[in-house]
């Protein structure tokens, strides 16, 4: 069983962290907000904005949604498609 949460970073957020994928070791369920707090402590993470659009397993999620080991959390900069 996976014991980490995969965090994906895109576009400007990937630039700020210098990485587009981070695996966070987590033994139990936490909130999306907890994941964001962990990411902010990484090098470059303090430059991330206070509010971020997030997705869990391909669906938009709120900061209070729970995530478990094995889930994929994506931090999405402001969308600019179309």
């Amino acid at each position, binding site marked *: 069983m996976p014991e980490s949460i995969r965090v994906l970073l*895109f*576009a400007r957020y990937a*630039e700020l962290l210098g990485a587009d994928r981070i695996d966070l070791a987590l033994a139990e369920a936490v909130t999306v907000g907890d994941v964001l707090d962990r990411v902010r402590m990484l090098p470059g993470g303090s430059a991330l904005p206070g509010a971020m659009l997030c997705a869990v397993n391909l669906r938009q999620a709120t900061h209070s949604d729970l995530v478990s080991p094995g889930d994929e959390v994506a931090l999405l900069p402001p*969308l600019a498609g*179309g």
Partner: protein
Amino acid sequence: MHLTDQPIDAASLAGRIQTARRGGVVTFVGHVRDHHGGRAVQRLEYSAYAPMAETACAEIVREAGERWPVSVELRHRTGELGVGEVAVAVAVAGDHREEAFEACRWVIDEVKRRVPIWKREYYEDGTVAWVDPTAPGGAVPAQYPAEGPRA
């Protein structure tokens, strides 16, 4: 698949959905413009959270077909594009033009609202920025220059 790194042919997209019954076809095609926020754009690069973007596009197409009696095709380009190239195309066929216009407008609005795609613009003056509709001026400077690791 709604995302493609190949040139988009809007005419063939419209041809896929027009039928003998659905005679009114409205198409929206967004081409790369040569200016943004007062700066001259040279080229740009679209990146996407591909699996989520595909899911979002599929949902938009399905929902449009539930809201209106129409058939919908949607394509969004990824990768490097030059000025004038097609970035996005939406084709909607309906029995009548009212629903085709409404649905086409709705689809492109939802694409901008829901689909995780990002745009990196390369300007004539050598600077690079991430397009950000929520930021003043509509863009945020990129950390790496045009020839940086993501170019």
